[in-house]
């Protein structure tokens, strides 16, 4: 029983980083219907930027993180403004290919600028500091990630549901022409969406960096975050978060009781199953465009 509880707790812990990446993907998808495959590398470059501020400029962690958040927002806005907006007659497939291109450029840049050797980021909470309840262990960093994911999900949920800007973002996704007619500056909305998404991704990156940093550190969280977003329905923020936790728990239970060798594949089996059985995802209510 202890083992089962520990696996569930560990699943929730690892699900938190998937949840943050899933949230970041959903934010962009909600407004542009584009799965952003550069999300991981946008988080990566923000994390290395923070590391540079901390180690080369010796800034305090709070100042460095604040500057990093500003940098992340500007990076997201810049990529949308300078690259995606320039696409001629864009369709979804074209946009996906562009995001893959951006991903490769950012990855190459980080490898070139910061090197490939493993690093860890100085952080007030050590990656291996933990709390033990009886025989159940959870690391403090995982606990912080869990709280951060839940807080961010709630804030974003309220933002999209009740704020003017959030509603404008929703309107842009549902019918950009109608949104323009009622005065929504859809270009600006899209740019802001990329900024917010980049910020959420940067938070995920910064919470992974105290454990290990290298140019490929965001691949796994991105893939699992994407799987969670698909499971959750791509447009539902709570859906992506709940699916991320489900994914983390299922992976851990599968690894613990069935096969550790095939643990990683579980996420992708789930994606295929969800797409076959309920293509709109487990938690999304899709808006149907009327002709």
């Amino acid at each position, binding site marked *: 029983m202890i083992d089962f509880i520990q696996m569930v707790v560990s699943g929730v812990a690892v699900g938190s980083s998937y949840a943050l990446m899933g949230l970041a993907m959903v934010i962009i998808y909600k407004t542009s219907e584009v799965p952003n495959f550069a999300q991981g590398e946008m988080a990566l470059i923000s994390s290395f930027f923070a590391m540079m501020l901390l180690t080369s400029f010796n800034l305090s962690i709070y100042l460095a993180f604040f500057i990093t958040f500003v940098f992340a927002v500007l990076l997201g806005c810049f990529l949308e403004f300078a690259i995606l907006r320039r696409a001629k007659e864009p369709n979804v497939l074209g946009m996906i290919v562009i995001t893959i291109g951006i991903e490769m450029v950012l990855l190459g840049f980080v490898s070139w600028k910061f090197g*490939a050797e*493993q690093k860890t980021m100085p952080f007030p909470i050590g990656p291996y500091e933990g709390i033990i309840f009886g025989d159940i262990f959870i690391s403090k960093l995982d606990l912080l990630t869990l709280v951060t994911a839940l807080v961010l999900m709630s804030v974003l949920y309220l933002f999209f549901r009740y704020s003017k800007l959030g509603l404008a973002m929703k309107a842009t996704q549902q019918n950009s022409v109608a949104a323009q007619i009622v005065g929504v500056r859809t270009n600006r909305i899209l740019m802001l969406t990329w900024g917010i998404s980049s910020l959420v991704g940067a938070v995920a990156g910064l919470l992974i960096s105290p454990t290990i940093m290298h140019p490929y*550190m965001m*691949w796994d969280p991105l893939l699992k975050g994407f799987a969670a977003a698909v499971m959750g329905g791509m447009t539902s923020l709570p859906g992506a978060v709940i699916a991320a936790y489900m994914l983390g728990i299922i992976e851990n239970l599968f690894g613990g009781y069935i096969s550790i060798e095939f643990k990683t594949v579980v996420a992708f089996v789930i994606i295929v199953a969800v797409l076959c059985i309920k293509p709109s995802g487990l938690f999304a209510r899709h808006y149907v465009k009327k002709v």
Partner: protein
Amino acid sequence: MKKGLMLALFVSLAFLLSVVPTVCAEEGVTDTEIHIGQWGPQTGPAAAWGSVARGTGAYFQWINDNGGIHGRKIVYHMFDDGYNPAKTKAGVKELQEGTGIFAWASGVGTTPGLAVRDYLAKKNVPWIGPSAGSLHWVNPPQKNLFAVYPLYAGEAKALVKYAIEKMGKKRVAIAYLNDEYGKNGLRGAQAELKAHGLKPAVEVSFEAKDSDLQPHVMKIRKSNADMVLLWTTVPQAAKVVGMCKAMKFDTQFMSTSTCSDFPLMTYITKGAWEGVICATFGESPDSGHPGIEKYKTEVFDKYAPKEERWGLFYYAGILFVEPMIEGLKMTGRDLTRENFISAMEQIKGFKGIGPEVNFKPYNKNDMYSRQGTNQTFLVKCLAGGKAEKLTEWMDME
């Protein structure tokens, strides 16, 4: 008629002159140059081991600036394969058939190396010092391939033997990467345990891209092992040790030479690597070994860019090709592949900054005709990434 004969003679002479040098000269060798190639992951998941190829590059520059070898300078062709066997194969073929490489030096990784092993063997292109301790290089031995890296299976045996005989450990857990590198270590550990009448407490396999290691750690912890042998990637080994220590799972960790860069491991585990015992193939940076000191000041300080770190894998790039340079010197001015291979076979008791290297004339039934060393030694990580030598160089079984 006379004019026609003269023309025919002239054309024949011109043809012979154009053909003779290529018939006589060896591919990749000119009067003033020797072309040597190497692949190394400068990008991708194994890029941290890319320093091996850069270390070799700096060493060759140093050799060139000190007069070269018998009047020839080394022209070094290094390419980034990203630890992707398809890229390794494409890059090697392109350089071999386009530029013409005399011999290949080192090259990181078992899987990338396996992708080109048969190609190089078929063309009989010498390949010296693959940067991986795989049994695949020498079992069966290949005429063109000379291995310098101690075998992973031997390292695993040496570690398990030390744990059982010197430390009294009885329950050994094996955490291994599910590829040829990990399985070489697994097989060595299993064999040594069997020789002592023991079985692994648990065998836990890792995939290279696994980053959530909680289930793996739980399996290891549940086994209640008193020694955990780690044959995984560097980040995974670091995470397992850190997580086990955080869970108050007090056990002895041991690991392979690929995780024996103690300053790096101490840094990325925030000190949790202290106490881990590793097998290794080279003296530690703080050992005061005269060869290490010489290369630090004459090669690294002079040729490495300022962001490069003087660590085990940087000078491993020198260590793995020292016997190659010895072989080139022994070959003399008449540099052909056959002469070079014969010279390599004459290397006996060569001692650079790594283990003692000995080769023999090719014998398809004797892997030690091409496996240059069976030596390793064990080191323990101390606070601050310093190393304590637990054994002297010892022969592995």
